């Protein structure tokens, strides 16, 4: 997609990054990405995609803002307390970057809406706090051959997995069963979520452009208590019910 004068002015300082340039910037502008949800992870994902120049976002998140959201959901405005979350982040994103197209969906991802939402976009960022939602997006992405960047965190730890259908392990290859002990409420510090978010955005930008090597069949895992980062190998499962046939 053609860059206009404003695009060139806004992104001037990143156009010299090897592998990005005007060509990569045009790709970013022509990209539509889905983010589910827009909490501690999804909020910074949305803002960093917007700042990088991704042209269009679909944000899916149900519910109203609560006090306990504000330690991490940095895309929300405090004036929107008790109001719809997704409307708040759509508003703050558009205030930050009026040229971006943003669609807010007042729903979380589930098995019945995942396929439709994924079909609208080129790339998916999986940032939901429940595996049920992550698995629904994973399945829809595999079925539609769309890449997905799965980012997650717990306490002071975080991880990022890139799913390229047919080429890498999918989320169901890595986690063949719904983790029974995972609970909706988890210890969370906003900076730990935001770190996973920024790594996820970088993986997304690399998937779209030629500015670096994407994590392929390895998951990045970090522990911020001692700032250790390492790559854990992942492997496709031939018997995976989601991607094994590819």
């Amino acid at each position, binding site marked *: 997609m053609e860059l206009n004068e404003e695009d060139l002015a806004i992104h001037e300082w990143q156009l010299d990054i090897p592998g990005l340039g005007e060509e990569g910037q045009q790709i970013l502008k022509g990209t539509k990405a889905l983010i589910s949800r827009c909490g501690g992870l999804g909020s910074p994902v949305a803002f960093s995609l917007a700042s990088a120049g991704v042209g269009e976002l679909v944000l899916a998140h149900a519910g109203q803002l609560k006090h306990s959201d504000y330690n991490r959901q940095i895309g929300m405005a405090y004036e929107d307390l008790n109001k719809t979350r997704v409307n708040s982040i759509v508003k703050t994103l558009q205030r930050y970057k009026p040229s971006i197209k943003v669609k807010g969906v007042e729903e979380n991802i589930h098995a019945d809406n995942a396929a439709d939402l994924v079909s609208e976009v080129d790339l998916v960022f999986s940032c939901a706090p429940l595996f049920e939602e992550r698995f629904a997006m994973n399945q829809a992405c595999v079925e539609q051959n769309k890449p997905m960047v799965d980012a997650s965190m*717990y306490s002071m*730890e975080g991880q990022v997995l890139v799913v390229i259908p047919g080429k890498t392990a999918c989320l169901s290859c*890595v986690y*063949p069963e719904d*983790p029974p*002990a995972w609970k909706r409420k988890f210890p969370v510090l906003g900076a730990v979520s935001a770190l996973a978010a920024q790594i996820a955005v970088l993986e997304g930008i690399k998937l779209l452009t030629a500015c670096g090597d994407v994590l392929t069949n390895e998951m990045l895992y970090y522990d911020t208590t001692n700032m250790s980062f390492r790559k*854990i190998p992942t492997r496709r499962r031939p018997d995976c019910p989601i991607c094994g046939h590819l």
Partner: protein
Amino acid sequence: MKVTIAYFGQLTTMTGLKEEEQEVSEGTDIRTLLKSRADHFGEAYQNLLFKDEGLRVSNIITLNDQLVDKKTPTPLSEGDVLMVHTPIGGG
């Protein structure tokens, strides 16, 4: 011989440990070692790591940075580092 077990995710919270060193006898395999730790730490550890006495498939276990096949007994060696990740899904 001595081996190290490093814990991640909910296991860190549950055990209160980042890692621990264990003395094991020659020929001990991963499942046997983790079962002995489940006997020490109790039901929550057992449920996070085991299902029907087998290692849960959804945990990621590496031995010296290589993925462990949880269905095949893997014997341990002196100085091995076992890393056990329970799934994390926070956002």
